[in-house]
């Protein structure tokens, strides 16, 4: 394979801008929009389309358009619009059984039946989400930058609004950047059929569930401290500590638990065998995150990160993410991606309840996302950088999730069932980045 020569097709002004970005504010870690570099008077336009499909479950199409502009010397604004369409099925929390199971839809207006020996899925998910975020990034002094951001997203049953702010202080001849960030989010659930009271039964259709109201909300506050350090001419590292607190309704209003007979048989209890889950109304979580970026003499780039995450629900996780970019002649590159995620279960994670436990336990959830599992991702990205600075790229990835069954929950006949709903998903993404000047030139070419 022929390695490519260094390409500097972005033009001298863009190179100056990139040098300024690398020199003055290693801001990429402080926000999602960080790292976007608008060139001079033009708008920088980044777009992507993602197709995500789980085997026999959820499918999603998501489009993003991000535009950035330098509005003054070294001062940038960015706006990002996201739309996604989701359809398909999601595990409802109940365990498989050796007989068919009938559930009431969240609306309470119909019911559905799942075959014996299959993971019970709620098939009613169909959602359209629209999101907008804006960010303003400005120098506050020769060595201090500030970023302000806001975001809003709307789904059929969920509204999320938030603001964030961060400061980045360069020290040590601008080889070190200290970052400090804060964010506040206010989310509102407006679930179909209302907010069920935790641990109350999912009534058989046409009876209605017991609700505590039509909607509910939660607040999420986060704080981040980070250090970004230039190690040498080819290596950059970042370490972040972040802490967050969620208060309010943290339960999933659509998830239920199976309730078993109290005889060790593993049979569902005779009447009302499903109850709505119930989680604590507060969660504090923390994470330590490390990332390193290194360029080898052959111009290939390693991007490696590790995150340790823990919370007061008893969840701990380790995430390793590796991207390695091979550069080839003519602007082509290939980037394999590997990700490994291992999570321990929440203290109140249960795959089943025994008759009566719903009145004695403070909390319980069978949401597989709170269980013990491993996620593995393998993917490959191909990109092509045009000489004028534009880029087009594609990637394909496979994601597998495999979890553990709790032996205490797999009693009687359930020992023959797979209680954790393993998952397999495929991801396809296409991306295009260009400058507004290129778009105008292209459109004008039709009128010549």
């Amino acid at each position, binding site marked *: 394979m022929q390695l490519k020569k260094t390409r500097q097709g972005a033009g001298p002004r863009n190179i100056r801008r990139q040098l300024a970005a690398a*020199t003055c504010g290693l801001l990429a870690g402080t*926000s999602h929009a960080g790292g976007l570099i608008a060139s001079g008077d033009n708008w920088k336009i980044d777009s992507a389309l993602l197709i995500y499909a789980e085997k026999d479950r959820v499918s999603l199409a998501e489009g993003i358009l991000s535009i950035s502009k330098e509005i003054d010397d070294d001062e940038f604004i960015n706006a990002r619009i996201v739309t996604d369409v989701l359809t398909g099925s999601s595990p409802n929390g109940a365990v498989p059984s050796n007989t068919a199971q009938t559930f009431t839809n969240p609306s309470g207006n119909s019911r559905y039946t799942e075959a014996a020996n299959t993971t019970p899925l709620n098939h009613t998910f169909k959602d359209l989400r629209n999101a907008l975020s804006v960010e303003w990034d400005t120098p506050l002094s020769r060595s201090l930058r500030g970023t302000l951001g806001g975001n809003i997203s709307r789904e059929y049953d969920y509204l*999320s609004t*938030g603001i964030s702010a961060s400061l980045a202080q360069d020290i040590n001849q601008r080889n*070190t950047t200290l970052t400090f960030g804060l964010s506040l989010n206010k989310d509102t659930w407006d679930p179909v059929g209302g907010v069920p009271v935790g641990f109350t039964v999912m009534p058989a259709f046409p009876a209605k569930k017991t609700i505590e109201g039509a909607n509910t909300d939660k607040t999420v506050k986060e704080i981040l401290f980070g250090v970004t350090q230039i190690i040498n*001419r080819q290596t950059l590292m970042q370490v972040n500590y972040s802490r967050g607190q969620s208060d309010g309704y943290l339960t999933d209003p659509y998830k239920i638990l199976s309730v078993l007979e109290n005889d060790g048989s593993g049979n569902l209890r005779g009447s009302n065998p499903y109850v709505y889950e119930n989680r604590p109304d507060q969660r504090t979580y923390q994470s330590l995150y490390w990332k390193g970026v290194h*360029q080898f003499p052959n111009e290939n780039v390693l991007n490696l990160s590790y995150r340790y*995450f823990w919370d007061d629900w008893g969840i701990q996780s380790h995430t390793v993410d590796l991207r390695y970019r091979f550069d080839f002649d003519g602007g082509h590159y290939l980037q394999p991606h590997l990700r490994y995620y291992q999570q321990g279960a929440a203290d109140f994670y249960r795959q089943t309840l025994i008759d009566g436990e719903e009145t004695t336990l403070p909390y319980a959830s069978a949401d597989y*996302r709170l269980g013990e599992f491993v996620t593995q991702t393998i993917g490959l990205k191909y990109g092509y950088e045009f000489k004028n600075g534009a880029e087009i790229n594609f990637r394909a990835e496979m994601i597998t999730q495999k979890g553990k069954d709790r032996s205490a929950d797999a009693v009687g006949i359930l020992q023959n069932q797979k209680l954790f709903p393993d998952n397999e998903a495929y991801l396809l993404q296409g*991306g295009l980045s260009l400058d507004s000047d290129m778009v105008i030139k292209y459109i004008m070419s039709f009128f010549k």
Partner: protein
Amino acid sequence: MIKIALFSAFISLVLSACSLEPVQPWDRDLLAQKKMQLVADPLEIYLDEHTYFSKEASSGGQSVGGGGCGCN
């Protein structure tokens, strides 16, 4: 134990900043390349974070904010 090790790494990186040979602005040509940014492709990272946020109990670490969703 893990927390102690990681906090030690955090502190060491801060302290090591003082002992490293500073890289001068005119030597930052490689660091200025797009592929050398900590987030080289922000949209790809955004899509990944959204995907894993909806499938796992952990999220964040790289940044603050970004919004929530009632994901399934």
